[in-house]
């Protein structure tokens, strides 16, 4: 009783969620870059410059360069993150890459979410040998390491954006099947399902109209996490040479190109895209966490 005397209370609902805010900011920033990134960089991300392996400016040079680029007195726009061994401007490529990475990640996520939710619904709602078989197949798919499966698939089907999307979608679909199915198993015994049955609604209509919309929450929350990891996986595939083809701006590709020069002390072509990936994946992950806390 009296132990609360000096405490002030704020309703839990109104508490500002920092995690959520950080997540939203990062995700919004990356999305914005996916839309306009390729056009706002100082250089075309797919064209080389004559200056190779230029290091990024030191901190003391930055104010002068900033002034110079605004007053248009420099002979060429500054390379904020340096250039790599082929002469690509690292900064332009880093901010152009979300278009590639995010597009692949979003497409892969929504393809797998769509397929996974429908299959999960069918597997949970109609339990028979067919759906049991489906679950075992999805177990097998899930038991391969995600990265290896994706790598093999891309290697077999060819290095195009579409194939990467399909490969990622295939490895993420079992997760969505499982999540949706678990929720459907709970929701299919709800009173409103029986009520719909009592008014003669066909089973398939009950499944899609009543059960599916009420079973989507966990899968939607998982989406945020999946998108983050899909970006990581896309970059990983490029890094091992099974991703998009150069000179498409893509973080993993940039890291991979720069990696050869690290030994010569050229750290910048790899480190900056690496930081970009970390921030992005972190952003999607905390957003997913915050959403989960809010809706569960």
């Amino acid at each position, binding site marked *: *009783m*009296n*132990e*609360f005397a000096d405490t002030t*209370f*704020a*309703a839990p*609902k*109104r508490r500002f969620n920092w995690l959520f805010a950080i997540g939203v900011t990062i995700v919004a920033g990356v999305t914005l870059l996916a839309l306009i990134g390729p056009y706002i960089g100082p250089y075309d991300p797919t064209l080389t410059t004559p200056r190779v392996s230029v290091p990024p400016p030191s901190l003391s040079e930055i104010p002068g360069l900033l002034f110079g680029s605004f007053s248009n007195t420099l002979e060429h726009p500054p390379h904020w993150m340096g250039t790599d061994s082929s002469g690509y401007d690292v900064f332009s490529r880093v901010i152009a890459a979300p278009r590639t990475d995010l597009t692949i990640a979003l497409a892969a996520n929504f393809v797998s979410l769509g397929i996974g939710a429908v299959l999960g619904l069918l597997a949970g709602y109609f339990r028979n040998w067919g759906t049991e078989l489906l679950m075992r197949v999805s177990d097998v798919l899930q038991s391969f390491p995600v990265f290896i499966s994706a790598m093999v698939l891309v290697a077999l089907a060819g290095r195009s954006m579409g194939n990467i999307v399909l490969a990622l979608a295939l490895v993420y679909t079992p997760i969505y099947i499982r999540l949706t199915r678990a929720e459907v198993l709970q929701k299919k015994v*709800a*009173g*409103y399902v*029986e*009520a*719909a*049955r*009592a*008014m*003669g*609604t066909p089973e398939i209509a009950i499944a899609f109209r*009543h059960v599916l*919309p*009420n079973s989507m929450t966990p899968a939607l929350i998982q989406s945020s996490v999946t998108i983050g990891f899909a970006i990581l996986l896309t970059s990983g595939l490029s890094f091992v040479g099974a991703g998009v083809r150069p000179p498409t701006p893509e973080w993993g590709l940039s890291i991979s190109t720069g990696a050869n020069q690290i030994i010569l002390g050229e750290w910048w072509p790899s480190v900056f895209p690496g930081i970009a990936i970390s921030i992005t994946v972190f952003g999607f992950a905390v957003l997913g966490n915050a959403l989960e806390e809010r809706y569960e």
Partner: protein
Amino acid sequence: MSNLEKPLLDARDLIVGYPSGGHYSRPVNGASLTIRPREVVGLIGDAGSGKSTLALALMGLVQAPGRILGGSVEFGGQDLTKLSEDELRAFRGRDISAIVQNPRGALNPLIRIGEQISNAYRAHTRATPAEGRAKAIEMLTMVGINDPERRVNAYAHELSGGMAQRAMIAMALAAKPRLLIADEPTSGLDVTIQAQLLDQMWQTVQDTESAILLVSQDLGAIANYCDRVLALHDGKIVEDAPVRQFFAMPQHDYSKEILGLHHAQGDRFPEQVSDAANDILEVEKLRMEFPVRNSDNVVHAVGDFRLNIKAGEAVGLVGESGSGKTTVGRCLVRLLDPTESIIRFDGFDIGSLDQRSMRKFRSRIQFVFQDPFDSVNPRWSVSDILIEPLRQLADMSRAERRKRAEEVMELVGLPVELLERKPRGLGAGILQRINIARALICEPEFLVLDEPTSVLAPRARNALIELLGKLQKELGIALLFITHDLTTVRYLCQRVAVMYLGQIVEEGSVEQVFTAPRHPYSQALLEAHLFPDPDHRRVDHPSDSALDGEIPSPIDLPTGCYLASRCPHADETCRSIPQNLSVLSDGQTVRCWKAEHEEEPAEMAPATKTG
């Protein structure tokens, strides 16, 4: 008991607040009450009215983040609201203890119950572990648990709900507290067990000379066990009266409202439907078995069920949980496929139709589910929920459907504006009306209601029952009302069928069965039911028709009469010969050879008389 006696507990202007949106909401806002030694005081109020909050606050307990904002609770010369947590701990258990709603949740699953009782006892005495164990056995015996020496070593999950609740009572009373706060101690238990348990609690408290604060929504429990009644409304005690006065002449509007139904009916029984009416439903045979997973056994949920319902007639189907009532209801509307059946609806056998052919009948037979929250799709608007049956079953334009939705909203007494809302945040009473509206939208001739009032607060329950009575009269719908609440059946139904272990054991007009039940099970059920009538309190008339034990497993059915193992009149014949349902001269049917041969119906106190 003398009113001059010094109160045991005296709460003055108690305020409990929970922070919400920058200020405090106050579920308890200036409640004052007294409890005298050895007195049984009832606390009644709606769900969410703050009953439990108030009861806990009397022990100085408030669930975080709430706190006591004002007032005092004087107990034994000290103000509990001013004590530190440590000083309070000494009070709890020794002077005041509590029994909460969910016994299994309140018992520690990892500690044997004997040890839990012993710990509760030893926390306030200097007893050794051996003495604690002896005390635990003594307490378990006192609360009527068979074989207490063995049960002290049981874990919570090994006990049935009723036994777990008894163990809780044993724990609460181990240190002989002067006040026992019982918060809905029997919610979720069956009537027969509920009565046994309350009897036992009442008796134990009489023996230990404690006082009880019985928190309940159930007028029956209040009327049968309490000396004095407190009504909580808007955070205040609005009425404080001796139990008979409370039921006979309630003063406050809230009390009048919860007692309204009780007063409206008086001694009358609902009028019978004319004999000329056709049977809308004839169940000649209904058997439902469920296979048990990974074994060859089956659960005999319903066996040999027969019932006729006339057009426009309301029939009550009563029995303990596990008796198969709900399964029958589901088979009748074909939510389940019966193992064997002849169910004639308006002359057509619908028992073996496939789901596609059944669609023709769906608009004429409807079902209302028990849980109002669960039975509406939370993502749909009320309007979409209501017109779903029309989309499926009727050929209507959008405007016609809308018009019909507005009509049924009016029929169930809800404002049309509600149509645009989603169910979220609507109360149980409103949602159950929406469910009823949805069931009525296709103008059915027969409606099955599966315990539609079991989760409602007293006021909402009364209103809903009145509504159902009105609808049945106005629309002439036949009802099958599945419930364990005999008070409601008595108000609403013309006929009643009593079910036990998947069979009907007795059937007749409500008047016949309620005034002269012939089957021992009906007798016990009526005896155990707590009618809200303080002039015929259970505690004043000990009875002998109580049943022993609990309902047997429906997997291994007994050979003879299903009730034989619990029946006080059972003999060898009962145990060996299966019983058939036979019609007596006055139209009542009963499944008991002894009752058939009796000239006079069993004597029974007119438990349904009202004040």
